């Protein structure tokens, strides 16, 4: 097995569950998210010669798997791709307060939050996955944090 294939296998072993959980917010179920991760890694393996080392491998694979997930939704894709998703919690009724707070965030910001807390992505990885600077991600997350915290206080929730 070549070095890139080895690196992909290691990434898969380490990050399969976070990838699947983050993608489940896009596909709507754990099963379809699993399929998207499997197909995403399979495509990444097949196209590994296209990977350039300047971006984190996790971000590169995420982009592929994310596209697969969007394809399964059979919705027209927009550019940037992040704007094509409307990610949400899998069982929103079980977490009404958090869900309501998350729904107040624009879809792109919500996706970044899910990448951070479900996908376990670093700021650098999210930045590469979304094709923006790390500073932009830090700012976006700070803004999302503020909005979520405000929305989850009794006063905020009542808004």
């Amino acid at each position, binding site marked *: 097995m070549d070095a890139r294939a080895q690196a992909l296998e290691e990434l898969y072993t380490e990050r*399969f*569950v976070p990838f699947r959980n983050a993608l489940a917010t896009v596909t709507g179920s754990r099963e379809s998210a699993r399929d998207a991760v*499997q197909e995403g890694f399979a495509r990444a393996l097949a196209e590994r010669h296209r990977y350039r080392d300047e971006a984190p491998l996790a971000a590169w694979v995420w982009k592929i798997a994310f596209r697969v997930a969007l394809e399964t939704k059979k919705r027209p894709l927009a550019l940037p791709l992040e704007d094509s998703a409307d990610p949400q919690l*899998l069982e929103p009724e079980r977490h009404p307060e958090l869900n309501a707070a998350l729904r107040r965030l624009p879809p792109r910001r919500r996706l970044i939050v899910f990448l951070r807390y479900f996908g376990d992505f670093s700021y650098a990885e999210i930045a590469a996955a979304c094709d923006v600077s790390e500073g932009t991600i830090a700012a976006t997350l700070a803004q999302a*944090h503020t909005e979520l915290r405000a929305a989850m206080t009794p006063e905020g929730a009542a808004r």
Partner: protein
Amino acid sequence: MIDTIDLELRERFAPLIDRVDDSDWLEVRPPRRSLRAPLAIAAALALTVAVAAPAVGLPHRVVRLFSDAKPAPAPVAKSFTDFDQIVSADLAAAPRQVLTAQAGPGEAATLWVAPTTTGGFCSLVKLRLRDGSAEGAGGECEPRAEVLSVDVTLHGPFTAAGKVLGGPVLILGYAGQPAADSLRLEFEDGDAATIPLVWVSKPVQTAFFVYAVPERHWRAGHLPTTITLRTSAGKELARDEITGIP
């Protein structure tokens, strides 16, 4: 400040995290599309195409009757089933072995194909290495055959600069044109090779090829430059430029 909020939110999300691990790398690895790299290759290592079907038709082309081809063994058939589940290919029949090609000394590549209900096909190539081990060498599901599709698979080490240090290096793919007879591969050093096709009959109706790149064509100055799909009369049907290995 951000760290504090980050921790706060991490705690908030923690109970929502599904920790069930249903990963399976083997499901990802075997039935895979190969590297879709620009092509390469040469002449020397002759392709040994083993087919049991009647050899009829065009000079460089062997016709393989799908219904007469050997059914795939259970592990290969399972790979197709797994693949089917991943890409929803909707297979119309069980996979069959359509060609075996020499991949190097003591090494062989075998290609299996299964038709899909949409008129396309899924294919899978496995490589048996000289140490007795086996590994996937590519595979794909196509809703409809293109005129020419070519992949390169590398099964040995290569440097970050792209220098191939070991083989096998395979060129494989398919041609959807019924009039296709052969492929001509040209190289930087002026060499050329003819790659025969194996035409698989209905319901697949596509020609396949697997070709092992001779070692002398793994390095700069000797790499392939162009692959051309031709009729028996020499008419060009399709062409792909080759930019190097890998």
